[in-house]
C-alpha cells in the first residue's frame, strides 16, 4: 500500500467547482494519476472536463477539495509557479514572435543563458521535425505545424505534467490522426504525464492509458480504453463510447454475473451490470460489430428475430438497419466481404451473438 501511495504523482481529492454559487459544475472529482500516465478526460461539452483541467492549471479556483502534485497541495499555488505545460485548442502561439521566440519564451522567463536557450530550442524544433521553421511566424505555418510548435513549447521547459485542451479539435481528419501518432510518440519518448481533454472518443481510445468519462460533472467510469469499450460501467458510458444497440426488456432472473432477460423477441442471456435487480426493466447493450446475421459460423448464445429495414454501404463495411418487433432500431456492422447478405424489403432475419458480448443495464 505504501508503494502505491508513493507512486501517485497527481491526486484529485473530492474536487468540486461552482461558478454561480448555486450549481456544481464538477461534483466531487477523485482521481489518482501515476507518473508517466496518459489520462484522457472525455465527455460531452459542458460535462465539466475542461473545468477540471483549468483548476489543475490554476486558471480557475477550486471551490472545495484538494489537488496535489507529488504529495503537495497546489490549490493555492499561482499558475506561473505550477510548472505545468499546456497546449491550447487554438494553440495560443504568440503571433508577434517567431517560432523560435515562441519556444524560447518559457526559457527566457526562467532566465536561462542565451546559448543554452538556443541549444534547447534547436533540440525541440528537431524533436517536432520543424528545424527549418524557426524564423517563421506562427501565421505562416499550417495547422499541423502550429500544433507541433505548441506541443514543443509546452514541453521545452521540461514540465513533469502537460495538459492538453482539445489540442486536435481544429485539425482535419488526416492531420488529426498524424498528430495523435506524434503526441503518442513524444509521450513515449520523453515520459511526461499527460492530462488530455477531448470530446472525440476515437482520439481518447487510441492514445490514452486511462480514460475518465465525464457526464454532468461526475466521472462515470475511469478505466483503460479496452475495459471502457468492452465493460462499460453504465448505460451512459456504453452509449457514449462507440456505437451501441439497446434492446429493452425485463430481468427474469439473475445467476451470479449473468442475467436472463425477457424481450419482445425472445429470452436472452446477458452480463449483469451493477445495480440490476430481478423483475426490473432493463436495457441490453450489444455492439453492432458483435452481432452476426444467420447463417454464421460464429459461436452464439442469443438469437433475436428482426425485420430488415435498410442497408448502407460505407466502404470497408456495410451497416444493416433492422427493426425489433417493438420498433427499436438495431444496427449490425458486417465486413464488406462475400459473407455480406442481401435482403428484400421487410424480410425477416435472425441476429446471433454471445452472452459475454452483451450487458444488461438498469433502464432509465
Amino acid at each position, binding site marked *: 500500500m505504501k508503494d502505491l501511495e508513493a507512486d501517485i504523482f497527481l491526486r484529485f481529492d473530492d474536487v468540486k467547482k461552482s461558478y454561480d454559487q448555486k450549481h456544481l459544475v464538477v461534483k466531487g472529482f477523485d482521481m489518482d494519476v501515476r507518473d508517466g500516465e496518459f489520462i484522457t478526460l472525455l465527455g460531452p461539452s459542458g460535462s465539466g472536463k475542461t473545468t477540471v483541467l483549468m483548476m489543475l*492549471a*490554476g*486558471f480557475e479556483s477550486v471551490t472545495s477539495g484538494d489537488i496535489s502534485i507529488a504529495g503537495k497541495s497546489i490549490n493555492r499555488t499561482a*499558475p*506561473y*509557479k*505550477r*510548472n*505545468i*505545460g*499546456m497546449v*491550447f*485548442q*487554438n494553440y*495560443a502561439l*504568440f*503571433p*508577434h514572435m517567431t517560432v523560435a521566440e515562441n519556444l524560447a*519564451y*518559457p526559457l527566457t*522567463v*526562467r532566465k536561462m543563458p542565451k546559448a543554452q536557450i538556443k541549444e534547447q530550442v534547436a533540440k525541440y524544433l528537431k524533436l517536432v*521535425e*520543424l*528545424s*527549418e521553421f524557426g524564423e517563421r511566424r506562427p501565421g505562416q505555418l*499550417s*495547422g*499541423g*505545424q502550429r500544433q507541433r510548435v505548441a506541443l514543443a*513549447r*509546452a514541453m521545452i*521547459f521540461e514540465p513533469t505534467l502537460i*495538459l492538453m485542451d482539445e489540442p486536435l479539435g481544429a485539425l482535419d481528419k488526416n*492531420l488529426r490522426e*498524424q498528430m495523435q501518432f506524434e503526441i503518442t510518440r513524444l509521450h513515449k519518448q520523453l515520459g511526461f504525464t499527460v492530462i488530455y481533454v477531448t470530446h472525440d472518443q476515437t482520439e481518447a481510445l487510441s492514445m490514452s492509458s486511462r480514460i475518465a468519462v465525464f457526464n454532468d460533472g461526475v466521472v462515470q467510469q475511469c478505466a483503460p480504453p479496452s475495459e471502457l469499450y468492452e465493460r462499460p460501467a453504465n448505460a451512459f458510458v456504453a452509449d457514449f463510447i462507440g456505437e451501441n444497440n439497446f434492446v429493452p426488456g425485463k430481468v427474469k432472473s439473475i445467476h451470479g454475473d449473468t442475467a436472463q432477460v425477457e424481450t419482445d423477441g425472445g429470452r436472452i442471456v446477458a452480463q449483469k451490470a451493477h445495480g440490476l435487480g430481478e423483475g426490473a426493466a432493463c436495457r441490453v447493450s450489444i455492439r453492432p460489430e458483435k452481432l452476426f446475421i444467420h447463417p454464421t459460423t460464429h459461436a452464439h448464445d442469443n438469437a433475436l428475430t428482426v425485420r430488415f429495414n435498410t442497408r448502407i454501404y460505407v466502404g470497408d463495411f456495410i451497416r444493416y438497419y433492422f427493426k425489433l418487433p417493438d420498433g427499436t432500431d438495431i444496427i449490425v456492422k458486417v465486413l464488406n466481404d462475400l459473407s455480406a447478405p442481401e435482403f428484400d424489403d421487410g424480410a425477416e432475419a435472425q441476429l446471433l451473438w454471445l452472452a459475454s458480448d452483451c450487458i444488461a443495464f438498469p433502464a432509465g
Partner: protein
Amino acid sequence: MSGAGNTSYPHMTATSHGLAPADARNAAREVRRQKLQAFFFVTPLLVFIVFAFVAPITTMLYRSIHNPTVANLIPDTLVALQDWSGQELPDDTVLIQFATDMKRMANERTSGQLADEINRALPGMSSVVKSTARGLRRVDDAEIATNGATLLREANARWADPATWNAIKVAGQAYSSSYYLTSVDLERAADGSIVQRDTQIYVKLYTKTLRMALIITVLTILLGYPLAFYMAHASDSRANFLMIFVLLPFWTSLLVRTTAWIALLQTNGVVNSTLLALGITDQPLELLYTQFSTILAMTHILLPFMVLPLYAVMRGIDQSYMRAAMSMGSKPLGAWYRIYLPMSLPGLSAGALLVFIISVGYYITPALVGGTDGQMISNIIAFHMQQSNNWELAAALGSLLLVLILLLYWLFDRFVGTDNIKLG
C-alpha cells in the same frame, strides 16, 4: 516520417495554358466591366469628397500664400512702385498715382479694405488711410494730377515715411510667404532677411497645443486601457452594459457635455461648493477657464475614441494567450507586457492616433472652458477668421497644423507602422 512531408498536400503542378485571343478578349471585357461597376459604387462619395474636402483644403492652402486684395485695389500705384529703390521717398509720380487711386477708392468705398491690409503690416495705418481717402474724395482730378504728392504729404506725415511705402509694396504682392513666416513668429525685415517677430505667439501656441494633446492622449490611455481590458474579458451582458456608459457621451450633445463641465467647475460650482462644505479649502479654487479644465473636459469627451478601438482589438485576443504565457512561468505583469501589450498595440495606436489628432484640432471645448490659458491653435485660427478678418493668416496657421499632423502620422508610420492600426 519525413519532416515537412507530413503536412504538405500534393499541389497542383503549375502548368500555364495560354489563353486563346478570343478568351483573352472576353476576360479583359469582364475585368473592365467589374472596374466600371466598382467606379459607379464609389462615385457619389468621390464627388462629395472632392467638393467637401479636397476643394476647401486646396482653397485654404492657396489662400495662405495668395492675397490679391491690395494688388486689385491699387494696381497702377504698384506698377509705379516697381522701380522704386525703397531707401528714400518715392517719386512724385508714384505719390500722384496713389492719390488718384485713393480718390477712386474713396468713391467706391473700398478704402477700408486697403486700410485693413496695410494696418496689418504697419499698425496705426488704418486711420491714416481712411482719413486721407476721405480728404481726397472732394478734391478734383486736375488738382490731384498736378498737386497730388503735396496733398498726400500734407494729409499725414506718414506718407512721407519710406517705411509706409515699403509696407504698401509688400502688401501689394499677390503671392507671399509672409503669412507662413508670421505663423511661425518670423517676419521679413526691410532688407529682406528673415528675423524673429517682436511678439512670439504662434510657436508657443503650437507647442502648447501639442503638449495638451499629448497629455489628453496619455490620460485617455490610462483611463481607457484598463476599462477596455475588463470589458473585453467580461461576460457579454456585462460588457454590453458597460458599453452603454462608454457610448453615452456620444448620444449627448457636445455642447451640453461641455456646459455641464462649466456647471461643475465654476467658482460657485458643484466641485467648489463641495470642497468648501467639506472644509478642504477655505477659498473656491480657480478650476474653470484654465488649461486644467480644458484637459479634463477633453479627456472626458475623447475617451470613447480610445476605448472603442481598444475594446474591438482586445475582444479578438483570446484569453488563452495570457494563460499560455502564465503556464510557461511568466508572472501576470510580465505576460501582459510581453504578450498582451504587443497584441493589443494595434488598438492602442489607433486610439492614441485618433485622440491625439482630434485633440490637436479641437475647437469648441477649449473655446468654452479654456479661458485664455486653455486656448489651443484652433481657437486662434477661428479668431483670425471671425474677428481679425485675416483669412490668409488663418489659412497659413491651418495649413501648418495640417503639415504638423501629417508629419506626426509619418513618424508614427515609421516607428509603429500604420498596418498596425486596427479599429475593429
